[in-house]
């Protein structure tokens, strides 16, 4: 068994001064880019791509990968502090992270997300080391029918994560799915619901929707509120208050463990898994919890679980990319492009023909994760001070970061006007008590659901039984039905309790 010699080889490669330096540069840039809401990994990776022409391919990949998972780490900062999510995963972190910040517990939330990210990343790295070839095969056994059913499960789970009735959650999921159909149809190229605007031919920018629904609506909600002095005073930002207490730790170990497993499991599915993972992890914790009512009001588990899952998924996403040459998203594709530039054909043979590259990269993930913890922990004290900025200066700055972040995705001023539209929608939804997070996941998963549904029907010659005849697909659908029934039942129970005894039994 040459597993140990592979690990040793990987450590030697990853710990070379040059690779250490570029790994640090990668995670540093990833952190910076990720902290700016809306600026995604793609911006950082494409910025540094020319640099990679001049260094060894392993070094190049170490750096690009560092940006990739560094961004995932950094994404939670603006979500927790300012309710500004740059990705669908960060939107889940907003649900409890932002209430925690408003209660003066931003430091604890940021601290625990850092630890959670590290745990999730580490778990997925171990998985990556031991099981890569096997897991990649498992990913391939997912056909269109399995993807479609998995998405249904993810959407049902998402509809239960907000407080209140699951019916409202499902309605928002469906509305999100509809918004996600805007743009050209994948099979006929036909433009749908674009109202003549070519700017949305490729769909509405996700960042514009997320920033509008969460960031802009939050600013609007706080405008003109009399006596809106923060509930926290300066002395609450003492260093001791920033760190989690024993209670926080005890509440977090379970979600971290479960989030790692869920995130790693979903992460190996190219493209789809990472967005679903944090929603499912959150929904799972809420269902698991003895006191689900705390969720959405600043529960630490609601921050830890999705963040662990998110980072585990980011790390696990390298499994299909490295072992099959199938990139899960544009950033992964860009990394494979960097390999091509260096004359290495990405694909199954990379692991065997270039062990120094594969194992060096995997071991660099670990080093990078340690760098990220070292980078993030001291910064927490700095970040929470953002909340001490008077609101009259904070909200124009938030609007500025929202606008420039949204613009940067497609270099499109049109998207800035879209964020305005979704800000209005988000504000209306806030007033009508309609949850925004399920809508967001609906938008992200809409093309995945529709396209795989239609592909599955093409492949099965129009037999809808394909979804229940294929065992994995059937399993997801059964799970979706169970989740739905359970949440309806607990909602009714709660509603009865809330309405007192005046409601007739059903």
């Amino acid at each position, binding site marked *: 068994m040459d597993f140990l010699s592979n690990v040793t080889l990987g450590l030697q490669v990853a710990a070379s001064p040059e690779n250490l330096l570029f790994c640090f540069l990668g995670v540093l840039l990833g952190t910076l880019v990720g902290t700016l809401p809306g600026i995604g990994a793609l911006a950082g990776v494409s*910025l540094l791509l020319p640099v990679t022409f001049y260094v060894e391919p392993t070094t190049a990949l170490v750096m690009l990968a560092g940006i990739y998972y560094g961004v995932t780490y950094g994404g939670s900062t603006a979500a927790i502090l300012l309710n500004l999510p740059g990705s669908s995963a960060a939107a889940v972190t907003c649900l409890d992270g932002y209430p925690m910040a408003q209660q003066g517990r931003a430091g604890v939330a940021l601290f625990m997300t850092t630890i959670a990210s590290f745990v999730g990343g580490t778990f997925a790295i171990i998985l990556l080391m031991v099981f890569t070839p096997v897991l990649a095969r498992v990913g391939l056994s997912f056909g269109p029918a399995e993807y479609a059913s998995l998405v249904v499960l993810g959407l049902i789970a998402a509809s239960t994560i907000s407080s209140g009735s699951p019916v*409202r959650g499902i309605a928002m999921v469906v509305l999100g*799915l509809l918004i996600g159909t805007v743009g050209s149809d994948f099979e006929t190229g036909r433009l749908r619901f674009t109202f003549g605007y070519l700017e949305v031919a490729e769909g509405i920018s996700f960042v514009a929707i997320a920033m509008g629904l969460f960031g802009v609506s939050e600013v609007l909600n706080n405008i003109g509120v009399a006596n809106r002095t923060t509930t926290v005073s300066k002395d609450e930002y003492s260093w001791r208050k920033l760190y989690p207490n024993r209670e926080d730790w005890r509440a977090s170990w379970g979600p971290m463990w479960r989030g790692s497993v869920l995130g790693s499991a979903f992460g190996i599915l190219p493209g789809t898994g990472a967005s679903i993972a944090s929603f499912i992890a959150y929904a799972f914790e809420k269902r698991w919890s003895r006191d689900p009512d705390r969720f959405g009001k600043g529960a630490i588990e609601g921050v830890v679980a999705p963040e662990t899952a998110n980072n585990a998924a980011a790390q696990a996403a390298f499994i299909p990319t490295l072992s099959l040459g199938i990139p899960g998203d544009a950033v992964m594709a860009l990394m494979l492009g960097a390999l091509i530039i260096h004359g290495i054909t990405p694909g199954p043979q990379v692991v065997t023909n270039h062990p120094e590259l594969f194992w060096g990269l995997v071991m660099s993930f670990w080093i990078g994760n340690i760098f990220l913890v070292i980078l993030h922990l001291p910064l927490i004290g700095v970040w929470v001070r953002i909340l001490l900025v008077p609101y009259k200066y904070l909200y124009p700055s938030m609007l500025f970061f929202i*606008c420039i972040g949204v613009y940067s995705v497609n270099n499109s001023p049109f998207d800035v006007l879209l964020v305005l539209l979704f800000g209005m929608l988000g504000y209306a939804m806030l007033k009508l008590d309609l949850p925004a997070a399920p809508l967001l996941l609906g938008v992200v998963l809409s093309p995945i659901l529709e396209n795989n549904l239609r592909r599955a029907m093409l492949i099965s*010659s129009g037999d809808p039984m394909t979804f229940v005849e294929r065992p994995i697909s059937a399993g997801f659908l059964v799970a979706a039905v169970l989740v739905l029934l359970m949440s309806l039942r607990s909602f009714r129970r709660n509603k009865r309790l809330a309405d007192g005894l005046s409601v007739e039994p059903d």
Partner: protein
Amino acid sequence: MQLFSVNPLQALSSAALFAVGAGAAFVGASRYGLGEIFHLGAGAFPFLLGLLLMALSLVMLVAGFAPPPQPNRRQWLGALAVFCAIAVFGLSLDTLGLVPAVFALVLISRLAEPPFEPAGTFGLAAGLSALAYFVFVFGLRMPLEAFTWP
């Protein structure tokens, strides 16, 4: 007895969702084409979603959920200022340049929270402009210019 005491806000949101669903289902079926069962057309998915949304909006209405009461605040002017600020930013980014756009965004949005405080506001606008230039244009190489006008 509960059936007819529908909350007006709930009625509003149900009506809006019903209208969106009906519109999507109609356009999906009539203009984009439903296709056949083995070869679903571009309109099939929006059609199904539209029907589902219509049904859900009715369930919401009948089930009688009441949104929690909202404190009545005078914030329409503030909201208007924020909307205008974003719109002017989007429209002036390419025509006037990054720095004028940031100034417009900050100055207009500051109207939402009086008092205006000129010194602090201009300072903030200048600071954010500098940040925008160094981080986004110089650092991240976004294709923007500080001034395109005059």
